């Protein structure tokens, strides 16, 4: 059985097998996205963060997003992984990749998938700030200041 197209990872993950999964003889183009922990958010210095997921529902909703992307765009394959747990500055939080015959579809699908993951998948970010405070992020809508 192939690995699922969307996965929650509770530890650091390799991107090489994800890239390998996107390879296809007809694939001329592969677009990918890495989201990493920044040292600031909305101007506030960030020391580190934690992601929590409702894993069962997150993996189901993530799989739905990937299926929708394969139906909506002229792509050959796509997959994504999102981390949970404690992450340090610079650590990889989310990875998305899409392969296609042509670059338009690869870029559009990759961008659409990360937008949908951020909007729909039950994952929450808890940020620890340099001033000692910490908070859950519950944006009112898709926050344009997000990476």
């Amino acid at each position: 059985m192939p690995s699922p197209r969307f996965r929650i990872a509770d530890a650091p993950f390799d991107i090489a097998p994800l890239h390998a999964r996107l390879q296809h003889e007809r694939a001329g183009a592969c677009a990918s996205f890495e989201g990493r922990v920044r040292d600031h958010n909305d101007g506030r210095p960030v020391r580190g963060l934690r992601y929590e997921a409702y894993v069962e529902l997150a993996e189901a909703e993530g799989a739905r997003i990937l299926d929708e992307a394969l139906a909506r765009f002229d792509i050959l394959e796509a997959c994504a992984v999102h981390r949970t747990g404690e992450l340090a500055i610079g650590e990889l939080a989310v990875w998305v990749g899409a392969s296609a015959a042509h670059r338009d579809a690869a870029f559009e699908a990759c961008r659409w998938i990360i937008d949908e993951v951020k909007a729909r998948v039950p994952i929450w970010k808890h940020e620890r700030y340099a001033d000692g405070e910490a908070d859950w992020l519950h944006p009112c809508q898709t926050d344009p200041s997000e990476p």
Partner: protein
Amino acid sequence: MARVTLLYFASLRDAAGAASEPLETAAPDLVALYAEAQARHGFALPVERLRVAVDGAFADWRDAVRDGSEVAFIPPVSGG
């Protein structure tokens, strides 16, 4: 009366002091069930900003509370 298990995430879990709790409830639907939990734990998030899931799948707030189900209140997500 229905016996359900409530699941709390992120700020709701911090406010409730638990990731889950068993509950016996007379709430007719999921909206009323959240109102009950909100009153007990003082949740700041209004129901309009939440989604709800039953047994691992997104559900409608107007759905009836099913005996033996697991109900998750989903605060606004912030992955990515």
